Each structure stands twice: as structure tokens, then as C-alpha cells.
């Protein structure tokens, strides 16, 4: 794959059909909440129009200077408690092209496994210096990077003793509405990954492995932070060699 030169994409070309086998099914009863929240009808496939190949464009000035620094963006009296980590990676499309200027939004629990959210009642302590959210835009190489503390695992009411592995939520907004994606990143070596009912909604082991960030010693900050790498793939944009009628020009 990496040796293949991707075909040129026209700006309004279609995106590849979504490979549904890459994703969890809507109805995944091991994750109980999905039972009543999953459509029973099959989604209807449509040919993409301008509505699907466009998406909001975000500008750097919309984001604050500390938005991507979770160690500092909610710090009140000092640094948050926990293991300091840098998380970084590349956002590419299925042809390997960088997705530039993608909005990457992240959120997570603190080191105790507690979320700063009005609905989270877990006994784990809140950290007055940790909000748990951040956001950034990818650069011209599709690269993103942020600093945070490693989130803790926490229990949740699915079966009575289910625990979420440590994870960071990611929301990706690329160049097209069809590329919109929400996922979760896990940490290499976490034994809870294997038994997590939400991880297990994904039918494909390779797809699960791709959600597990690898420790990246080359990017450790000496005497400060470890680093993890998490690459993300969004849907690929096709070339339009023979047909380009998406905007309604005559055939």
C-alpha cells in the first residue's frame, strides 16, 4: 500500500464507499445501551452529492493557544495529577494522503477515571486542575499533537463489574461530511482492552489493534513526558477520470 502513488483527487470527487465491516454493527448486544438505540432498518445508500463531499472549514484563529494542551488549559492552582503523556499521530485518507486542516477534538477522564461532567457520579476524585478536553487542527502533513495526562480506567454499569480500559475519545472532522468520525484510542499493554464490551463491538481484530496507541520512545520528552502514537485513517477521496457530474453539469 505505502508504495502506491495515490491517484489525484478532484476537489469535488466522491469518497469511497464505507466499508461497514470496518465498524461495529449498530446492534451489538454485549454493549447493552446499543440495543434500544440501534436502527433496525438498513441505512439507505445514496450517491454522494455536494451535501456529502463538503464540510465545515475551520480556521486556526478559532482555536485558543492552549486548546491542545490539556496539562494547562484548565490548570487553576498547578499541574494536573497523573502520568504526563504526549499523544500524536497522522490523519490520512485511505489512499495514504494527509488530511490537512482536519479538526481533531479529544476528551477523556482524569487520572482517577473521573470525567468532569455533571452526569458522572463515579467515586473517583475530580482534579481541580484538569478539564479533560482539547482540540487542534492537523498540519500540512496531517499531523496532530497534544499533551495530557494518561486517563484512568473506570467502572461502568453494563454488566455489574465491567471496566473501561484507559481511553481518549477522538472526534474527527475532515474535508467532507462523509469523513466525519468518532472513535476511541486505547493504550498499548492495557489488559482491560481484551474484555471491554465497547471494544468488542468491533468485529475485526485488526481494526481493534489499530485503535491501540503504541508507546513511542523516540518522542518522549526527557525528564518530562512519555509519548504515544495514534494514526487515524478517514475515508479516501476518489479520482474522477471519466465522470464528474456531482454538481449537476450536463453529461
Amino acid at each position: 500500500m505505502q508504495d502506491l502513488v495515490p491517484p489525484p483527487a478532484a476537489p469535488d470527487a466522491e469518497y469511497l464507499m464505507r466499508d461497514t465491516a470496518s465498524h461495529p454493527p449498530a446492534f451489538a448486544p454485549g454493549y447493552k445501551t446499543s440495543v434500544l438505540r440501534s436502527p433496525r432498518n438498513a441505512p439507505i445508500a445514496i450517491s454522494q452529492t455536494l451535501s456529502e463531499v463538503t464540510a465545515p472549514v475551520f480556521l486556526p484563529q478559532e482555536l485558543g493557544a492552549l486548546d491542545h494542551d490539556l496539562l494547562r488549559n484548565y490548570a487553576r492552582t498547578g499541574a494536573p495529577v497523573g502520568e504526563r503523556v504526549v499523544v500524536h499521530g497522522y490523519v490520512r485518507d485511505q489512499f495514504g494522503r494527509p488530511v490537512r486542516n482536519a479538526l481533531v477534538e479529544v476528551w477523556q477522564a482524569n487520572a482517577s477515571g473521573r470525567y468532569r461532567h455533571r452526569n458522572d457520579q463515579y467515586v473517583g476524585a475530580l482534579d481541580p486542575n484538569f478539564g479533560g478536553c482539547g482540540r487542534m487542527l492537523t498540519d500540512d502533513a496531517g499531523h496532530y499533537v497534544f499533551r495530557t495526562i494518561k486517563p484512568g480506567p473506570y467502572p461502568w454499569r453494563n454488566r455489574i463489574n465491567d471496566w473501561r480500559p484507559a481511553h481518549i475519545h477522538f472526534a474527527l472532522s475532515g474535508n467532507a461530511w462523509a469523513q466525519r468520525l468518532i472513535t476511541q484510542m486505547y493504550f498499548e499493554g492495557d489488559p482491560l482492552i481484551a474484555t471491554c464490551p465497547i471494544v468488542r463491538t468491533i468485529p475485526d481484530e485488526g481494526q481493534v489493534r489499530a485503535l491501540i496507541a503504541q508507546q513511542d520512545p523516540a518522542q518522549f520528552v526527557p525528564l518530562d513526558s512519555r509519548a504515544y502514537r495514534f494514526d487515524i485513517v478517514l475515508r479516501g477521496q476518489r479520482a474522477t477520470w471519466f465522470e464528474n457530474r456531482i454538481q449537476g453539469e450536463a453529461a
Partner: protein
Amino acid sequence: MIDLLRETASQTAGPYVHIGLAPKAAGFDVFENDFGNVLTTPATQGERIVIEGVVHDGSGTPLRDVLVELWQANSQGRYAHPADRQAGKALDPAFRGWGRACSDFETGVWRFETIKPGAVAGRGGVLQAPHVSLWIVARGINLGLHTRVYFEDEARANAEDPVLRLIEWEVRRKTLVARREQRDGLPVYRFDIHLQGENETVFFDI
């Protein structure tokens, strides 16, 4: 056969999606600039409307932790994106056409303040009826759901819309048409979404 990279697997947005996408709703203030549900400024061109609704689960219970995003063209039917090169339609510098709304934690009602979009060119020269796209994520939703909102008072355009006409079961098309009401002098389009059950909303594989 040539292998492509596989799209990263989706995972549910979870119950605390607000922390990342709408921290004020989660109960705290962290960013200077929050992305919200008001798409207009005083300078925006077009007819002011509200689009609101509730997302119901298969038991009919409102989802009170859902996040909905909206993407639409401007009043002339043009998207604020470089791929849109439709002739004769101007961009509106005061309208991006994107927003996100959280359902109320008590009632489950979500709401957008926006403008009615113009019609956008469809494929092969067929005009699409005015519509907005919605993307729905929440705890229990494993892959974000795509749907479209059409407008009750565009019956003629809706009848010709190539996407609506693609829905084989005519009885299901009405799940995509928002009901127009008038409230405090403002048109309010009501668009309730049913994830499951008798009136299950049509979702699209885009």
C-alpha cells in the same frame, strides 16, 4: 488486488461526549470560543428558522445525552467549502452552515437557530430540494447516524428530490420531512428522530 488503508473503526461517543464537543453543557468553561447551535449572526442572509426535535430510542424514551451536528448550504444553496463551485451562487461571509446542539438533559430537546437553505445542485443536473444534513452521536450509537431534514412547505421540491425518491418505501419518506410551526413570529421546524420502532427515521449510508 490493491489494498487500501482501512478507515479507523468507529466507537461510540459515550455519555460524556459533551466534555469534548460542548464543554459548557458538561458543566465547565475551558475554551474561549465554543462551537454551538446558533449558526446565524445579524449579518447572515436568509429566512431565520429554528430546527428542533427529540431523538427517541426504541422504547419511545427521549435520548437526553445525544449530540446532533448540522451541515447545510446558505440561503442561495451554496456550501461554504471549496468543492462547491456552483455557478451564480455567492458565498455568505456571515454563514458557515455548521453547528452542533446537545439535547436538554431533562427534556431531550435539541435546537438549532439557522436560516432556511436554498436548493443545491444534485447529480446529473437534478436539483435537490432544500435540506440540511444531520449527524447523530450518543452513548449506545456505535457509528454516527446520517440523516437529512426536508421542509414541509417545500412539498413540490420534495416530490422531485432524487434522494427522497430513492427511498423505496414511500411511507418512510415522511420521517425526513420537518413539520412547520410558527412560534413567536419565527418558523420552527419540528424534526423528531426515532432510532427504532414503528416510525424509525430513515438513515443514510453516505
